[in-house]
């Protein structure tokens, strides 16, 4: 499902909800829609193990059984991992940070590590992205809480190439993994031989991350520490 756009996924979920007979509430008005809302969707081309949505119901349901019937009704590749009941009055989901994994086919781990080191040593790196509202500037560095490059260990052909792991803070405008890759390219990170494979592993509130140093150490990630020089500007077209 990494190739599905957010709209594709939203449509599939809407249908899954109907098929599973979930008692979803509908909006009022001329053209009623099921009340399903999404927070922090992953960009097209990224897979995710941590997407969140809220469904408003017309009556209470037992979360686990709703999860099972919805999961069964969804197409392959979209799976329900967990369902929790949310009080209508609560603050809702706080998706303040994400953990991403980016596989870089054909890129050697040590070259990637050098680029990561240089990236982290720079306090601010502005990149540009072409959006529907025109070119926008983003500080790719400011959003990164932790970043590391390792050698990918796995059965596929990509084994042995670089794999980046990053913890990114949710900002507005959102900084995406491809923005961080664009920034890395300025530090002589080699270009991958095939498009990078991006997967979101987790998203949630900041306090669940714990102290950044601990998180990073646990995951074998390097964190930021040293300040340095001028910001570097890079340009990128929005791939959406």
């Amino acid at each position: 499902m990494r190739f599905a756009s957010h709209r594709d996924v939203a449509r599939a979920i809407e249908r899954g909800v109907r098929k599973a007979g979930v008692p979803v509430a509908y909006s009022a008005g001329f053209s009623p829609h099921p009340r399903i809302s999404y927070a922090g969707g992953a960009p097209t081309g990224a897979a995710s193990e941590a997407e969140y949505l809220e469904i408003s119901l017309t009556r209470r349901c037992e979360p686990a059984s709703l999860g099972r019937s919805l999961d069964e009704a969804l197409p392959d590749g979209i799976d329900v991992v967990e369902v929790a009941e949310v009080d209508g009055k609560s603050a809702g989901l706080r998706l303040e940070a994400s953990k991403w994994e980016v596989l870089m086919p054909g890129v050697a781990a040590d070259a990637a590590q050098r680029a990561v080191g240089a990236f982290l040593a720079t306090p601010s790196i502005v990149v540009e992205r072409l959006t529907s509202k025109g070119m926008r500037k983003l500080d790719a560095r400011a959003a990164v809480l932790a970043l590391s490059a390792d050698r990918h260990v796995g059965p596929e052909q990509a084994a042995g190439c670089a794999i980046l792991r990053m913890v990114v803070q949710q900002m507005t405008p959102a900084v995406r993994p491809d923005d961080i890759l664009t920034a890395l390219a300025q530090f002589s990170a080699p270009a991958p031989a095939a498009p990078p494979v991006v997967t979101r592993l987790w998203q949630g509130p900041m306090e669940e991350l714990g102290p950044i140093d601990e998180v990073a150490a646990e995951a074998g990630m390097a964190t930021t520490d040293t300040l340095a020089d001028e910001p570097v500007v890079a340009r990128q077209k929005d791939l959406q």
Partner: protein
Amino acid sequence: MPVQSVYPMLEKLLPLVRKPVQYVGGEVNSVVKDWNAADVRWALLYPDAYEVGLPNQGVQILYELLNEQEGILAERTYSVWPDLEALMREHGLPQFTVDAHRPVRAFDVLGVSFATELGYTNLLTALDLAGIPLEAAARGDEDPIVLAGGHAAFNPEPIAEFIDGAVLGDGEQAVLAISEEIRAFRQQNSTGGRDALLMRLATRCGVYVPGFYDVVYLADGTIGSVAPNRPGVPRTVGKHTVTDLDSWPYPSKPLVPVAESVHERVSVEIFRGCTRGCRFCQAGMITRPVRERSITTIGKMTEAGLASSGFAEVGLLSLSSADHTEINEICTDLADRYEGKNTGLSLPSTRVDAFNITLANELSRNGRRSGLTFAPEGGTDRIRKVINKMVTEEDLIKTVSTAYANGWRQVKLYFMCGLPTETDEDVLAIARVAHRVIEAGRAASGRRDIRCTVSIGGFVPKPHTPFQWAAQCDHETVDARLKALGAAMRADRGYGSSIGYRYHDGKPSIIEGLLSRGDRRVAQVIRAVWEDGGRFDGWSEYFSYERWADCAAKILAEYGVDLDWYTTRERGYAEILPWDHLDAGLERDWLWQDWLASIDPDGAAEVEDCRWTPCFECGACSTTGTQIEIGPTGARLLPLTVLGRG
């Protein structure tokens, strides 16, 4: 040789192509069976993009039916866009199915469903990418049997050299019979090889195998004869007709794509065939006689479809849905059943004179009042009589007025340009009709913001219709009339902005004409166009008239014929038509009489609908040994009790 999924290789290419999710499969209601547990395996190809091919009901019916059978497996494949085609060639990736990403060449049968002739170049791409020789005569025992089906298969002569066989008409029983035959053939050690299998399909399964017929041409370019070149093969091949459609309630588990597709709803075919006798309409003519599904079955299929898919809309499909003998009960009962469940109902094809406001209200109870669509097809009463579409301008104005008065805001009207005996005035009259519609609509609704969209394209004479002898209108005339019509509609500022105008140029229609009424010589034109890069001819971004015209000119000159010969030339009674040896169930003489009646200088004669009036002996029932199957059954739908779900 083990058959493996090509997905690992495909996955690497997907980030590089547009709309990659269309190639991924895994749709709700997609079926992947164990390869080794089946002994007959079908790959079903719809030769157009996934978004068009996926909702196609013909493919979905056969897909579900075949997969239900023990020992039979069916998977789907669609045309890949040129960007993926290029990458597939570069990386040696073969044409694959989306269900399990298996190579198409590994299957026993490649069934190709042609709703339109413009898919012919895409057929060649699929064969080539699959590694199947383009020419049927060059295929060996390891290659699948390539069978064509769908409406265009009623004249498969232009692609005769690329297909092993064609199945005319309904596919449900035919595919089961073909599967049985293949199984039996294998059990007998495939004695005689491919040729023997084709012989069995031709003699026992009603499959038309073009290779068993030779075509001889006369000096003037027309056909001298089409005759079997071996004993045992029938002189004419008939179509398949399934009776009692209640026994074939497919599809009941519609495929639900993740990618966008052109129709996103449960489609329930409420009847097959049509008795209205519109002279231009191939679909109506070749699917006779009418066979209705009962209200009870329609109710069951609707519920099964919604429950298994999660779609929010149901379309009740047929060639003229309001003609179903129980349509009012069907609409009322379905609307009652789904009241408050946010499920929309639609009746996509309704004739102006059969439409009634009760129907429209039932249909809009559960959803929005989207637009209504009607197809007057011609701009004047005179031309409508020629095509036997018995709708007067008054009928049309009355109907749209009622619609607007009841809250509908948008009406779409379909027309054709280039009909036989048409004059400039017939087309210009459409502007007047559109103005009257707006005027009536404003008066009836009390609002100025109602709209009407006129959609018009070039008429293409089709095989097995009374117009199969007609001269197609040349594209210059069509384009000139369309342009004049646009100007006329815009001319009156009072109405101009309330009228939308959509039209198709005359040139693509001429190529469609070449392919619709072409013979075997046209195959070389298709091949040449394809080799020159022709793809997706049904899409204006890809279609190139110049390429087709150039290839046609070069190749056909050798035979002393040309593009005009196939399109704008009127045929005579005695000329052997390329499809005369294929029987759609209609008496040739009856078609000829109907043609003469339509062009009678004293005014066309009208032919009534045999559902309601006595039979006029078109031949459909007698030649196929079937009868018109209609209700009413008098049954009603009971409300559903939903027993605690979710």
